[in-house]
C-alpha cells in the first residue's frame, strides 16, 4: 500500500472519529456530571437531523440556509432537553440505574414514534452547503471538504468543552459536582440548576451533531440506535465522563473501523468491539476514566 492511500484511509477515519466525538461528547458530559446514562442521546441527535431538514426546507435560503437551520435546530433540541430534564430526568437522579435506563429507553421509543408520525418513514437529505460542496486535494487524492468541516467542528467543540470544564468557574463547579455532589450542594450551589444546564448543553450538542450530519448522509429512522451503540463503544474505551477519554475513544474507534474496512471488511465492526472488550478487561473504567466509588 502506498503512502497516499494509507493517508487517505487515515483521514477517512479521522472524519468518522470527529463525527463520533460530536455525539459522544454530549453523552459523556451528561454522564460525567449527572451520573445518568442517557440512552436517548442518539434520539435527540436524530431529532436534530430531522428538524434541521424541515427548518432548512422552510427557510428557502439556498446557500447559507443550512447554517441557520443547524443553529435553530440545535437550540430547539436544547429546549426539548430542558423539557425532558425538568419533567423526567430530575425525578430519577436519586433512583438506581434500572429506572434511569428504563426511562431513557422509553424516551427512545417515544421520540422514534414522534419522528415517524411527523416525518413519516422517508429518508431525507440536504445538499452540502457552500463552501463545502467540492473536494480538496491532498497528495493528488481528493478529500471531501465537508469532512474537513466536520473535523474542524469537532476540534472547536473539543476546545470549547475543554475551556468550559477547565478554565471557567462553572467548569470548577462541574468538576466538583462530578466528584462529590453533596459537598458542592453543601457549599450553597444549586445542584438542580447546574444539572439542568448541563443536560441542556448535552442536548444542544446532540442537536448540533444531528444537524451537521444531515448533509453528510441521509436523514432516516434508525440513525439514533445506530450512533448510540458506537458512542457507547467510544465512551467505554475512553472512559465514561472524561473529555480527553472521549476524544481518544473517538479517534481509536474511527481508525480501527477505517483500517478494518480496508483490510478485513467483514470484521470491521467486530474489531471495534474487540478493542472495547480488551479495554474492559485491562481497565474496566476506560483509558481515562476513574473507577466508580
Amino acid at each position, binding site marked *: 500500500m502506498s503512502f497516499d492511500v494509507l493517508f*487517505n484511509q487515515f483521514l477517512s477515519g479521522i472524519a468518522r472519529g470527529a463525527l463520533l466525538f460530536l455525539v459522544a461528547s454530549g453523552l459523556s458530559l451528561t454522564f460525567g456530571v449527572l451520573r445518568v446514562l442517557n440512552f436517548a442521546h442518539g434520539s435527540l441527535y436524530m431529532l436534530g437531523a430531522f428538524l434541521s431538514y424541515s427548518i432548512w426546507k422552510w427557510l428557502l435560503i439556498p446557500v447559507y440556509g443550512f447554517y441557520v437551520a443547524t443553529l435553530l435546530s440545535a437550540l430547539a433540541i436544547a429546549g426539548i432537553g430542558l423539557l425532558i430534564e425538568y419533567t423526567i430526568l430530575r425525578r430519577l437522579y436519586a433512583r438506581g440505574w434500572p429506572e434511569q435506563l428504563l426511562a431513557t429507553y422509553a424516551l427512545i421509543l417515544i421520540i422514534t414514534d414522534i419522528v415517524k408520525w411527523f416525518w*413519516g418513514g422517508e429518508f*431525507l*437529505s440536504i445538499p*452540502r452547503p457552500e463552501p463545502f460542496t467540492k473536494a480538496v486535494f491532498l497528495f493528488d487524492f481528493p478529500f471531501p471538504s465537508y469532512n474537513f468541516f466536520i473535523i474542524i467542528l469537532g476540534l472547536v467543540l473539543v476546545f470549547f468543552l475543554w475551556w468550559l470544564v477547565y478554565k471557567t468557574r462553572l467548569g470548577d463547579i462541574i468538576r466538583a459536582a462530578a466528584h462529590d455532589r453533596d459537598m458542592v450542594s453543601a457549599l450553597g450551589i444549586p445542584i438542580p440548576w447546574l444539572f439542568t444546564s448541563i443536560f441542556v448543553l448535552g442536548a444542544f450538542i446532540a442537536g448540533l451533531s444531528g444537524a451537521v450530519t444531515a448533509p*453528510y448522509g441521509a436523514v*432516516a429512522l*434508525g440513525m439514533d440506535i445506530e450512533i448510540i451503540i458506537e458512542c457507547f463503544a467510544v465512551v467505554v474505551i475512553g472512559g465514561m465522563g472524561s473529555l480527553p477519554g472521549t476524544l481518544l475513544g473517538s479517534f481509536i474507534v474511527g481508525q480501527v473501523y477505517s483500517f478494518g474496512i480496508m483490510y478485513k471488511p467483514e470484521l470491521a465492526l467486530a474489531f471495534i468491539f474487540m478493542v472495547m472488550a480488551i479495554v474492559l478487561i485491562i481497565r474496566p473504567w476506560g483509558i481515562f476514566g476513574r473507577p466508580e466509588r
Partner: protein
Amino acid sequence: MKKLAGFTVFLCILTMLLVPVTVLAGTKASAKDPIRLGAIWDYAGPCYMLSESAVQGIKIAVDEINAKGGVIGRKLDLIVRDTEMKVDVGARETKDLILREKVNFLVGPCSSGVALAVQVVHAESKVLRVTCMANTEGQVVDKFTPYVTQVVPNTYMEGVAATRFMNKKYPAAKKFCTVAPDYEYGRREEAAFAEEIKKLVPDSEILYQAWPKPGEKDYTSFITAIMAQKPDAVHSSLFGGDLVAFTKQAAPYGFFEKIPFIALYDLPVFVALGADAPEGVMAFGRGCFFMDPNPKMMEFVDKYRKARGAYPDSWAVQAYDSVYLIKAAVEKAKSSDTEKVIKAMEGISLDSLRGKFTIRPLDHMGSVPCYQGIIAKDPKYPFKTWKDIVRVPGDQVWRSEEGVREVWKKTGVTR
C-alpha cells in the same frame, strides 16, 4: 393465601370469558364470508417507507376489487401487521394473523431476513404468502415451500441481470469491487454477481468486497478503500437511504466520474437526492412508472397520486400486482382453499402493471421483469429518472429448472 385465592378466581373468570371466543373463532368460514388478506410489513428503519408504499399499493388494489364486487362474489378484508423489522416479532405477528385473524393469504414483508423467519411459520400452518419485496432467492430455492409465490425478481435474477447490463456497457472491465449491505439480500446479490461475471468474463477478478451494515451513515472509509483498489467497475446492491448516503459521500471524491458504478437507484432515492443524483451512472430497479411507462402502469400512477399525492414507486407496483395475482388464482380455483389456490397459481399468467408474467410451477417464481438504465434528467418530472432503459423478462435470467434442482439436492428439498 387470600391473595392467591383471589387470583385463582380471576383466572377462572378469564378462562370462562375466553372459551366462547375460541369456540366461535373455530367455526368454519362460509362461502359468503370475506376473503381475509394479511399484510405483514416492516415499519422500521430502512423498510419503513417501502412498507408504507407497499401497503398503499395493496389498499388501492383491494378497494378496486371490492368496488367491482370482490373475488368470486366475496369481499376482500385487509389486516395490516407490523414486524418492526425484527424476525421474532415477524414470526409472532404472522402466527397471530393466521390463528386469530384467520387470514387466507399473506402479502409481505420488506426485509429478506424477516421473510425467511415468517416463512417457517406460515409454511407450517399451510397458509400461502405472496412475497413482493423481500427478494432473497432463499424463499423459493434453498428453502422452497409450496406456500410461497414470488413476484419480485429474486436476488439471483436481479444480480444476473444487473451484471449483464454492466458487462454490456463496459465490456473491457475485468477488475471489480463490490459494496453491499451486510445481510441476506446484499450477500446473495453479490454472490449472483460473482457467479455471473465469471461466466461473462472468465479472467475477471473481484479485488475487494465492502460489507457496510444496513443503515450505515458514513461510507467514507469504504469509498477510499474501494478507490485505493483502482477497480474497472463497482457492482453494488445498496438501496434506499444507504444508497443516498453513499452517493453523497462518494461524489466529492469524483467517484462517479472515475469508476463505472451500478446500484438500485429507484424513485425514492432520486426524490431524496434531487440534483445530487449522478447522471450517467448505471441503475437497476424492479419496475416503477419511468422504467415501464405502459398505459396500465400510468393509469395506476394516476390512481396512486389521487390517493397519496405522490408518485408510486416500484414497491407499490409489486404489492398491487400481488393482490391481483391472488385474485386471479382464487378465480381460477373457484375457491379460497389454500391447496386449490396453489394448484391454480402454478403456471398462471397475469397481465400485470409490469406486463405479462407467469408463475413457474416448479419453484413458484414469477417471470417478472428486471429493469436497468442510465440515470438522466427528465423534463417531465421534478426528479431524475432513467434513459436507455432495458427490460429483461424474468425467464431470461432466472435459475434454470435444472439449476434449481441442483440447489435443492444440496439443501434437501424434494419435489
